[in-house]
């Protein structure tokens, strides 16, 4: 398991390659990458991500440990950035390695659902008009019911 909370960009290609190379005994590798959407005409200038140093790492560690416990997995990777990101930049990624595809997919979805609502990150959108905290979505909270 590797958990990284960082302000620097990460290299999706290099991370994916390294993660897969470390798990040649696993038949299935799933990655999820979250991107600050770069939409034409969108007033978004930047996204700022605040987090809770210390708790962030332990929350991500707990979420990953729960996934490793619940599915037949070889490994889990979680990278999440904080600080200022511009449209088109990657916010975070998770990767899972498993003997079978269903475990790899389910664990990746579980990690994302928990990370969305249970890891201490807060997004703020910056536009010419000012800064707005992103509201949590009921659908993100509801998504957790699937794993209850």
């Amino acid at each position: 398991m590797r958990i990284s909370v960082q302000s620097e960009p990460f290299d999706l290609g290099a991370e994916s390659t390294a993660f897969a190379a470390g798990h040649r005994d696993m038949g299935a590798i799933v990655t999820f990458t979250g991107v600050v959407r770069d939409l034409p005409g969108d007033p978004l200038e930047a996204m700022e991500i605040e987090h809770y140093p210390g708790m962030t790492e332990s929350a991500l560690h707990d979420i990953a440990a729960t996934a490793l416990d619940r599915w037949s997995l070889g490994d889990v990777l979680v990278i999440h950035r904080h600080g200022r990101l511009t449209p088109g930049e990657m916010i975070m990624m998770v990767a899972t390695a498993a003997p079978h595809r269903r475990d790899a997919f389910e664990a990746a979805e579980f990690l994302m659902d928990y990370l969305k609502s249970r890891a201490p990150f807060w997004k703020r959108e910056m536009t010419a008009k000012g800064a707005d905290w992103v509201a949590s979505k009921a659908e993100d909270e509801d998504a957790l019911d699937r794993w209850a």
Partner: protein
Amino acid sequence: MDVLYFAWVRERIGHPRDTVDTQAATVAELVAELSAREDRYAMAFSDLSALRVAVDQQLADFDAPLAGVREVAFFPPMTGG
């Protein structure tokens, strides 16, 4: 005890951290104590359903006990990912 604030809770209160000397037995009692300090605290804590709390860096409920606790944090629902 350290009390931390994040996101708009931090903005409303105006700073990221207080160090408090409290006899509060639960998070809810701590909230009542802080709310009595100043309007900006009262405003930040006016709707507890919009807040989440962590006790020693673990998500907790507002009735969580504070005995032996070193750090409490208040923040809005998380929006990571």
